């Protein structure tokens, strides 16, 4: 085994880690906001709001993320003059913002379904009880609905977070040099795919492992029973 090569590979790939994290964090935050909006639109009860939200979720969950990314990065280039007029061209010319936008829009659709599932799991009896106790809607949301819904939705959401971290690798296809971008460049240069794969895989595994542990810890903090005594 060529340890010197493994070491230089790992160090080179770690250089892409900040970009990977940046992409993941900004798209998860933006997507979370979008998901809340979509959920509210779907729950509003007005067809004018809920139908577009449902169509959005259908389209974004039914097509690959890569084509959504291409649509934004390459596809919108067809309307360059219009975008330039609107002053939006510098945004859509930048692969970083296109990647963030595509991933945020994608995760918003999936996360809104997860939130919807969480809200749906709140028993109607709990709502009635809260109202009967004289809670205002906002207080009821804060004390009854959200705690119950978040607990229910957290495991599914942690899956979505991991998928998002993995999805940042797609940004390499539109020239972003994050961990996968650097790895594919190195593979194309040296053809030592197995070593490079192992190093890149190690970085992603560490990321997803930390993420799952963190969510498990949060789940344990939020659980009412805490049977085990220690976090998993």
């Amino acid at each position, binding site marked *: 085994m060529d340890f010197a090569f493994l070491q230089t590979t790992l160090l080179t790939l770690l250089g892409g880690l900040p970009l990977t994290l940046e992409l993941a964090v900004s798209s998860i935050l933006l997507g979370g906001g979008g998901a809340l909006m979509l959920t509210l639109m779907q729950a509003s009860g007005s067809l004018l709001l809920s139908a577009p939200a449902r169509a959005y979720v259908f389209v974004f969950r039914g097509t690959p993320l890569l084509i959504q990314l291409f649509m934004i990065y390459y596809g919108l280039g067809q309307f360059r003059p219009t975008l330039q007029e609107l002053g939006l061209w510098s945004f859509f010319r930048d692969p970083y913002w296109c990647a963030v936008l595509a991933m945020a829009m994608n995760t918003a659709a999936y996360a809104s379904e997860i939130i919807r599932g969480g809200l749906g799991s709140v028993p109607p009896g709990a709502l009635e009880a809260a109202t009967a106790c004289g809670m205002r809607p906002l207080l009821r949301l804060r004390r009854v609905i959200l705690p119950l819904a978040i607990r229910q939705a957290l495991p599914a959401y942690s899956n979505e977070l991991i998928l998002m971290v993995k999805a940042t690798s797609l940004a390499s296809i539109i020239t972003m040099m994050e961990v996968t971008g650097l790895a594919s460049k190195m593979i194309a240069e040296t053809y030592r795919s197995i070593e490079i794969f192992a190093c890149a895989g190690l970085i992603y*595994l560490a990321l997803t492992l930390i993420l799952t542990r963190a969510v498990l810890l949060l789940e344990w903090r939020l659980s009412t029973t805490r049977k085990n005594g220690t976090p998993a």
Partner: protein
Amino acid sequence: MPSFDLFLGPNGWGKPLLSAALMTVALSLSGLAVGALFGAVLAHARIGGGLVLRSLADAVTTILRGVPDLLVIYLFYFGGSGLLSWAGHAAGYDGFIGLPVFLTGTLALGVVSAAYQAEVFRGAFNAIPRGQIEAARAAGMRNVLMFRRILVPQVLRHALPGLGNVWQLILKDSALISVIGLVELLRAAQIGAGSTRQPFLFYSAALVLYLVITSVSGQVFRWAETRSLRPFRRA
């Protein structure tokens, strides 16, 4: 209308796009089949294996679920071609030998989906009452017969909803195979976009075709699910 001729004219792009969509379906189907095979092996190791086999299967599952699919595809493409070239070199042929892209794509999709399929199969197996297995043994069934008559029909029934989810996952992952040059739907759209300079139009067309594929196959899975539950319909 210019875009009508562009797609449906005599030399239109409609036909290449449709055949590319068929390629996407074929690729995903073979990925699902290979993944089912790997997944069954993984599930078998996790259910009935010893400590070594079980922890090995656990490790494989963790790695496959934690590493981006794109990296796995690169590994198979460059690694497989490297291995072939090395073998060719040993046999006296100097030069680069590429692994066929359809095969690479199938293997990569199979491996990527295997971890998810293993979980689906394991859950489905656990849903079968233990008493049935004991009964099969008591009736004198050998392993293979029990597998065929008792386990497979029921595991498949319980696994159908989960398999439907995995299928959707594979379908969307198949777009990634375009990066190694297989002309599936996304790649065909890219080619059309490049030669007509109308990327938005072509990606929209591909988007619609993807939507059609995912929603139609989703309906098929729902139909299969209701059908598989027919014997249990309650009055």
